């Protein structure tokens, strides 16, 4: 299985290749664009549930940084086969969000939604390997295999530019 990560900085300064972290490829936000403005063309739309509910059709992956879920959005996203992004770096910088992520994952899995995991790191010290992320996310009710599967979905859901 091939694993992919998405980071938010220039990876030319990385000291270690993606394989060191266990990834086949590390994408940047230049390859896979993230926007909070629904009028902008991008791969990932991030925002609150109300905004995503209006514009979810135009984007491949949805991201709710506050991890407040909406059952209506989940039901519609399931119909349209949209995936949700879970950012590992948010847990690193704000451990209190773990509880929200745990609930978000629980409800998303109930709706059988696809969850895409990525570090969204802002520097090389925030990149976590798949196994490290699995150790962290085991406290959010996920098994190692589920986390590994989530890391393999990024390329499937978006076509990098």
């Amino acid at each position, binding site marked *: 299985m091939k694993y992919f990560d998405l980071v938010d900085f220039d990876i030319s300064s990385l000291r270690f290749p993606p394989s060191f972290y266990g990834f086949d490829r590390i994408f940047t936000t230049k390859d896979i664009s993230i926007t909070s403005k629904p009028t902008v063309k991008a791969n990932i739309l991030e925002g609150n549930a109300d905004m995503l509910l209006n514009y979810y059709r135009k984007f491949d992956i949805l991201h709710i940084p506050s991890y407040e879920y909406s059952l209506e959005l989940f039901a519609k996203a399931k119909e349209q086969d949209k995936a949700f992004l879970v950012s590992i770096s948010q847990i690193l910088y704000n451990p209190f969000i773990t509880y929200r992520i745990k609930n978000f994952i629980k409800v998303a899995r109930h709706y059988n939604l696809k969850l895409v995991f990525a570090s969204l790191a802002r520097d*090389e*010290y*925030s990149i976590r390997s798949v196994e*490290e992320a699995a*150790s962290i996310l085991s406290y959010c009710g996920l098994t190692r295999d589920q986390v590994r599967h989530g890391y393999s979905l990024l390329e499937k859901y978006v076509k990098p530019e």
Partner: protein
Amino acid sequence: MKATLRENYRYIVIKIISKNNLTKEDLIYILRNELPPIVGKINYPSIIPSIAYFDPIHQAAVVRVLDEGAELFRSGLALITSYKTENRNEKIHLMSLYTAGTIRKAKERMNKLD
């Protein structure tokens, strides 16, 4: 001591990723000061990490932990993002690479690192 009373240990190979090279004392400081707030002071005694071997050149180490706390240690280590002393405030990443049952196996694995 009876075999049933003996503590079982795991040896975890970690790679240190930081801007400046860390010393063994720095790593001891991190394990004693940065790790307990993450894993919790109540859970820390089920880990009791100690450095079994430190390689300052390759910036890698073998840390001995109690078997029952090995998973908690790996999770806690993954959540450490920086370490602060009076003089330093550095971003670090302590990456757990391999878990072994004997120090010999752990050292063998560590020697394979670049």
